[in-house]
């Protein structure tokens, strides 16, 4: 790890002031990602701005949404009664994330900015366009069992690792940010950027912008939601494929559906195609399978991750089956 300075911010504005004085600084909240990356030299910020003292940990219902402060810990959100009853898939996704120790530390804001587990991104001795633009992509023809098959480009196939963000994509949550240019709100579908030819740009955040909260719409049919995660081991593992779904049923007919996939895409992957296939269809396995085909129609494997395409289809079918019960 490189030597670095440390500053503790008391308010969002003091955090921004610290940043304006050192524009290569990074914010630190739970620290479960940034410290990891500093240890392996993927990140080497000269300054860490500690934002843990900022008053951003509250969880409150505002109108038809639940607003979760950026510093709320994963565990707090997973245990929140409104989240559990109105948007159960959010709680399920959180409970299947990381380990209890990490969930006690990691924050909601930090989780949205979690970096990929792509082994090339995390190894500075290898090429990676995300970490070192222009150096190439080691994963394209390398050890790519865990890489993405949706939203990829010839420059990057790194999988987005978050479970929570998959449910937020399904909900089209709103990210509240503050920055040197003032406050703004970003819809989740505008928040994440597919790699294209700039894989180093992962979100639409401006330099120094700080996530202060995330608003989750309390979807009228959110209680009929679930999250299915397939992984190599039973706990403390990233998704090989995951699906977040919510179904609005009228008897046995699907009125509306929300579908997002994880573990297989470069960003939390909302699937309008699957949602369209489900809208107005009977809630049957045949409909679910058609939706799964639609969700993965653009998926392209790179050898080691080919299996993820059939696996993601089955994962989505399973999630829909569970939600429809």
């Amino acid at each position, binding site marked *: *790890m*490189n*030597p670095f300075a440390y500053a503790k911010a008391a308010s969002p504005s003091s955090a921004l002031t610290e940043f304006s004085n050192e524009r290569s600084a990074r914010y630190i909240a739970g620290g479960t990602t940034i410290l990891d990356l500093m240890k*392996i*030299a993927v990140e080497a910020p000269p300054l860490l701005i500690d934002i843990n003292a900022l008053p951003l940990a509250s969880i409150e219902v505002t109108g038809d949404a639940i607003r979760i402060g950026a510093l709320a810990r994963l565990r707090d959100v997973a245990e929140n009664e409104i989240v559990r009853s109105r948007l159960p898939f959010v709680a399920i996704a959180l409970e299947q994330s990381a380990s209890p120790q990490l969930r006690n530390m990691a924050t909601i804001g930090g989780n949205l900015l979690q970096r990929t*587990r792509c*082994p*090339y991104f995390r*190894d500075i*001795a*290898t090429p990676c366009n995300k970490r070192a633009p222009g150096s190439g992509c*080691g994963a394209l*023809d*390398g*050890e790519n*069992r865990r890489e993405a098959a949706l939203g990829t480009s010839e420059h990057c196939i790194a999988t987005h690792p978050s479970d929570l963000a998959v449910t937020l994509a399904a909900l089209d949550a709103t990210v509240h940010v503050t920055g040197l240019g003032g406050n703004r709100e970003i819809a989740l579908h505008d928040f994440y950027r597919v790699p294209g030819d700039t894989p180093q740009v992962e979100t639409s955040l401006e330099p120094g912008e700080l996530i202060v909260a995330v608003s989750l719409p309390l979807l009228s049919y959110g209680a009929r939601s679930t999250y*299915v995660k*397939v*992984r*190599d*081991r*039973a*706990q*403390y*593992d990233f998704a*090989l494929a995951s699906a977040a779904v919510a179904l609005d049923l009228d008897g046995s007919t699907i009125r509306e559906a929300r579908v997002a996939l994880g573990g297989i895409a470069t960003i939390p992957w909302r699937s309008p195609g699957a949602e369209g296939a489900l809208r107005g269809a009977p809630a049957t396995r045949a409909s679910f399978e058609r939706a799964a085909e639609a969700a993965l129609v653009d998926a392209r494997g790179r050898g080691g991750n080919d*299996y993820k395409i*059939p*696996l993601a289809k*089955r*994962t989505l*079918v*399973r999630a829909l089956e569970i939600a429809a019960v």
Partner: protein
Amino acid sequence: MSQPLIGKPIDRVEGPEKVTGAALYTGDHTFEGLLHAVVVTSTIANGRILSIDDAAAREAPGVVEVMTQRNAPRVNAGKQTPNNSILFLLQNDRVEFDGQPVAVVIASTLEEAMHAARLVRVEYQPLLPQMDFDAAERYVPEEMFGGPAASRRGDPQAAFVAAPARVEQTYRTPTEHHNPIETHATIAQWDGDRLTLHDSSQWAFGVQRRMASVFGVEPEQIRVIVPFVGGAFGSKGQPWSHVALAAMAAKLVGRPVKLIVTRPQMFAWIGHRPQTEQRITLGAERDGRLTSMTHDVLNEASISDEFIEGCGLFSRDLYAVENFAMSHALPRLNISKPTYQRAPGDSTGSFAMESAMDELAYELGMDPIELRLRNDAQRNPDNGKPYSSKHLRECYLRGAERFGWSRRNAKPRSMRDGRMLVGMGMATGSRETFRGEAKARIRMNAEGGVVVQCGTIEHGCGSPTVFAQLAAEILELPFERVRFEFGDTNLPEAPLAAGSQTSGSVGSVVVEAAQQLRAKLAEVGGRVPAGGIVLDVTSTPPEDEEYATQTFGAHFAEVAVDPDLCEVRVTRFRGAFDCGRILNAKTARSQLLGGIVWGISMALFEKTRYDVRTARIMNANLADYLVPTNADIPAVDIIFIEEDDPHVNPAGVKGIGEIGITGSGAAVANAVFHATGVRVRDLPITVEKLLD
């Protein structure tokens, strides 16, 4: 004696120290003037170092020295033998594998050394690494472990051709890294030409001798202290490059140096279990009697070593089959040197052979236990010696009863629990019992307290507890009156703590020492002289063993497999074992449990993943190199078929450290086949291998 101590589930004497964090491991020790060393490793797997720019590192805060091929003390890096590899000690510019040490930064604090290590720039002339298992040059060893590496009895080819039932398959196991919780660590201190090492090792005396050879001094000039070892599993059986590098660094700077291997570096120059490719043929009569068996093994080797994963030995010594052949060959790749990992050969070999036996049972339409019972050997099938004891039949039968094997419908995909496919599988476990010469000093003071000293080590298996139990029982003393001291070359010599041999080797000398002390006490009428009684005792195994000595076991696994998502979870595990006398029911159970957990891990999780283009390991951390979590391990039920074995050794024990991992992986794999109808012959059994 009111109640026997042997077998009692006594808590480990060092348990409170360990669970409260008071126990000191090698890296916890510190000394006046101590400096910290961090190793810089190669980022290519084949080629030459053109230049090393250490200017920035030298200028970094706290840096005392940067050791490279330019200024490293000249030492003897050694010759390759099956048990000793060439060490990588900055003596030349050659790079043979990714992760090879190329520089050592020495600084006042660990943080300063870590930072400066990042500033060392190495320029290479890279060559393409050899990573093609099939195309690589093969080394064909003649010998392994004192016997032939290839052997034959009868005419297996002719018998195979004539056999009415046949299995012919190839099985593969991947590279696996040990990853004990405590990473390797060394502290080196020179006093003139005398060297003291604190080292995390399975064999203080092995480190002493190897370092004497590296530095051209007499073994007596080197003292090796091995404090508590936080797991080893074979990875600490020999000193790797960092032990010598720490001592070289200490020599170079004239101060004590501590070198702790990082977790990613545990995948670098520290040894690993080699990937294997095992071709097996079985021929049998329709009644299940085996008529032919062959086991041909390939295991990866590095460019300059000859470590053999002796998988064929598992098959050679297990079933009653007249016609048998085995062979071993080693494709050479640009990887670091493989080494012993818990039950080397038998863990990997049992996966292949016991999978093949399961395939044969299906071929014959016979229950897999019945198949094994029909081929149960009454004598060692290879050397014809009688067993010192053997209760494998009881292991099968009692294990099956405990597991509820009779409920199994043999047809694949026939059993369900709700949506989940349920599978039941079994396999035989077996491991030869080894024994080495061990020495001990036993001392009784005038107050009647006893200290037993032996330079063996404690790497989590309970040696100080069980050896005190043994001595206390023989001396008819309360357990608390006997203390066992270990972990220092200044103590009497013990053999390598590996191959499940410590309880039998050190246990035998403890038994003999306690018996001699008892006799001495009788001589002096029970009155201990003021100076106490001190006896030095050596226990040597006989030159030519009259008996075949082997541990046995039967593993039973139940798995649940999601028919669509293909996730496999082990839901029940039962095992029955024949390990001779059990010295401590608690530590014995822990040993078996650890082995079985690792067998499950081999079956479902572990694989070191190389980028085969560069020979660089891409999952060198414990988030991406998967081992089981508690959620992956069901309650494991272990029973011992206890017995008196008067022949095996004076301690009456057959060894317990490795039997748990032999066969357990195959039991899981066989259960997965039973659940799904998919035979995975390439570990680990991951989701993609079960998707149809």
